[in-house]
């Protein structure tokens, strides 16, 4: 079961690899765009650079896309709904049909992708198979403010949870966050670009221990440090 969960991710990753090397992303037909005529939902790949991305973010994104060319790094696609495949993967954990109704699916949005361009979480994720490291380039928009001029601690926590969770997902299939610990060292100015690094420290049975940090784009400032514990879901147990 869990193997089949990881497989879609790997195939998505494989789709991404050559794309970065062949031509600039916008020129190529995008395999990630699909239109499901029965549900009238378009799953858009949200990690394409858009006009709201700052110069810093674009630069970093291009640097990492270059790294994808030799296959050591992969760009991870991000979806508004977290993909139909993802929902299919979760279906086996839900015994309540309420959660798999189509209208619920179309009304909901994955939290980190539910904002208009530039106002929320502008981010892109990359994964290095050799170093087993996930990197998220993140630019927080105006709707993520906490203290005036700075990112809300909760917004930072959300991105850290997403990035650490992606590391755990790649390592162990469908996972849930059990613990999340964040030490905030320095506040992150609004609309600045930060790099969230994350890696799996160890796996004990169904427990996956992940750690990460948040650094400024130039790596001179350490903004936060975080650790997390994720649990692989047991297909024999229901979530509710």
């Amino acid at each position: 079961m869990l193997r089949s969960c990881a497989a879609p991710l790997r195939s998505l990753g494989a789709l991404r690899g050559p794309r970065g090397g062949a031509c600039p992303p916008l020129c190529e037909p995008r395999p990630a765009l699909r239109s499901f005529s029965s549900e009238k939902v378009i799953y858009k790949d949200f990690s394409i650079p858009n006009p709201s991305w700052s110069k810093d973010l674009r630069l970093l994104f291009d640097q990492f896309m270059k790294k994808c060319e030799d296959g050591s790094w992969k760009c991870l696609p991000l979806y508004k709904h977290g993909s139909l495949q993802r929902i299919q993967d979760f279906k086996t954990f839900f015994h309540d049909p309420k959660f798999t109704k189509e209208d619920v699916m179309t009304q909901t949005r994955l939290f980190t992708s539910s904002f208009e361009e530039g106002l929320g979480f502008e981010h892109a994720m990359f994964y290095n198979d050799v170093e087993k490291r996930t990197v998220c380039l993140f630019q927080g928009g105006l709707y993520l403010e906490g203290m005036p001029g700075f990112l809300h601690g909760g917004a930072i926590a959300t991105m850290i949870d997403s990035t650490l969770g992606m590391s755990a997902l790649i390592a162990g299939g469908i996972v849930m966050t059990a613990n999340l610990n964040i030490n905030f060292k320095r506040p992150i100015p609004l609309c600045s670009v930060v790099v969230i690094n994350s890696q799996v420290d160890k796996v004990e049975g169904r427990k996956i221990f992940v750690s990460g940090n948040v650094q400024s784009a130039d790596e001179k400032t350490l903004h936060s440090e975080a650790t997390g514990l994720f649990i692989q879901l047991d297909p024999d147990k229901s979530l509710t």
Partner: protein
Amino acid sequence: MLRRALQVVARCGQQGALLRAPRILPGLNPASAFGSSTDSLVSRFCPEKTDLKDYALPNASWCPDMLSLYQEFLEKTKSGGWIKLPSFKSNRDHIQGLKLPSGLAVASDKGDWRIFTRCIPVEGQGYEYAIFFHPSEKKSVCLFQPGPYLEGAPGFAHGGSLAAMMDETFSKTAYLAGEGLFTLSLNIRFKNLIPVGSLAVLNVVVEKIEDQKLYISCVTQSRDQQTVYAKSSGKEVPSLSPRPCPATTHPQDKQVRGSGPPLGSSSFRNGVGHLLEAQVKCRRSQLGFLSTCELPNPYCTDSIQVTSNLEPNAHSEHPLKLLPPQSQP
């Protein structure tokens, strides 16, 4: 509504005067440490008249559980003890008079910032919440209903959305309890998933205030308390001085002595905007907060020392003491 809240505040103030001796929170009398009492902070936080829209009010998207629990707490605000906190679109509206050090300017001057927990304006789609605060017991209750745009696992709220709700409640509670503003750390143990559209109740308590840090804990559960969604704890620190730190010893510091008007002797004030007279050198580790490298760092060196020209204000009970050197938190 707000007038009623203010009446409650006034009553709390009277009760507070009788109960001034430290009881629940060892190690701190907030009035002495930060120059402002909880009552005065609450009265600043809950304005009598405002044009600002209060988002923490019932609307059509609220589930029946949330509506009825909200009414229960509203009743408690009438009898005293509890206060409903207003919730505006931006923190800038909440914390008036707080001046951040110059140089930490905002990215856009269009005025369309939003506090993260009010980022999704469509009723019922994002964060629906209301926070009630109990000044004398320094605890809060947050009624939280996550909408479909906060989804993580299909049908359930994203862990990050709950983390943000906890952080927001911690922040408001810490501010009113002891002028805490910045989160130093957040530790969350997720137990169960919160279904989208259902009510989660966050019970937040200030455990202690020590070394200018507020230690806060929270249990998030269903209304009937049968399901625990998460347990968390956090540390908040206050912003001590909003003014750029004059001088001194830090070589990288671009702030110069004498920038800004001289600090007057009568400059102790209520609220977050209080100023410290004389020279203030800030300890990195104590505050746990720095601006980024490119910006002038207003909090320059390693120890907060207040020299002798200090005059306590009428509201503080003890003069500000020299803070002992602290090790890195």
